[in-house]
């Protein structure tokens, strides 16, 4: 029989360390599908984050480089400036991109570096055990906000797409959600656009992917998908921001 849906070539045939129902596995597959479709595997260099996706290089069958926590876009800037013919993208969580790496994110975007970023917003620090992230929702319970995030004490959820949309160097921003099969297909389309933009030298492109972290949210995989669809999108509305 003919294979209608199968593992993309860029995704190694290995078991992942992700929790059941985690969005990272889906997002990483989408990245691979886009790279295969564009035929750019040979010239791709990914910059991996610190966070649950730290070992993405074990799963991706193309060149990868590991950056210190939050510094992926600084490392990517260096790689791309030295080798402008390569396709360079970063893959980062919210703790990485929007907490410790906020300065690198804002300045790389503001410089309009010709890079692509896949930003996984799961509203929590997954790897370290579920502490509050800058993107944690108000009233969301985490290990460090056991009574729920309080704006008076912990401030408001950081909206990365909204924030970056005012910067002239930014070419493309879209927020998508891994909340259903349809949402996953839309996420792939956004990643495709962000990657094509770099090939066409359009400047900085970022896709923010709302992604389930069932274990740290204290939910089943299905409940997490539901919560993402019903609650998370109220704080982080989906759509094109630039």
């Amino acid at each position, binding site marked *: *029989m*003919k*294979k*209608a*849906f*199968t*593992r993309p070539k860029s*995704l190694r045939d290995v*078991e*992942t360390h*992700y*929790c*059941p*129902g*985690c*969005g*990272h*596995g*889906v997002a990483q*597959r989408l990245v691979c599908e886009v790279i295969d479709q564009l035929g750019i595997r040979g010239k791709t260099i990914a910059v991996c984050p610190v966070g649950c996706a730290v070992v993405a290089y074990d799963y991706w069958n193309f060149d990868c480089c590991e950056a210190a926590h939050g510094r992926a876009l600084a490392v990517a800037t260096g790689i791309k400036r030295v080798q402008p013919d390569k396709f360079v993208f970063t893959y980062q969580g919210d703790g990485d991109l929007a907490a410790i790496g906020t300065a690198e994110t804002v300045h790389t975007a503001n410089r309009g570096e010709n890079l692509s970023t896949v930003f996984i917003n799961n509203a929590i620090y997954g790897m370290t055990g579920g502490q509050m992230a800058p993107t944690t929702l108000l009233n969301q319970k985490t290990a460090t906000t056991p009574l729920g995030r309080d704006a008076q004490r912990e401030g408001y959820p950081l909206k990365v797409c909204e924030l970056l949309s005012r910067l002239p160097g930014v070419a493309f921003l879209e927020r998508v959600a891994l909340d*259903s*099969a349809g949402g*996953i*297909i839309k996420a792939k389309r956004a990643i495709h656009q962000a990657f094509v933009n770099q090939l066409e030298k359009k400047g900085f492109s970022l896709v923010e992917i709302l992604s389930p972290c*069932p274990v740290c949210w204290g939910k*089943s*995989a*299905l409940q997490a*998908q539901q919560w993402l669809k019903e609650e998370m999108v109220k704080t982080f509305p989906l759509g094109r921001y630039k």
Partner: protein
Amino acid sequence: MAETKINRERCKGCQLCVAVCPQGLIVLDKSLNKRGAQPVYFKGGKCTACGLCFQVCPECCIEVFNNE
């Protein structure tokens, strides 16, 4: 004719595919796999090769085949 193949040992039992299959063709297994998860299996039936189970699987351990 279409069918779905699920890698039993890779499955972590998140069950997103069980919920998404419009035909209800993916069900939970009674026994555990080697990693200790309760995997799912394709029970056969009128699979349309829509690929929704493939889309939602975080382990990418589902393959969908189509004859047409």
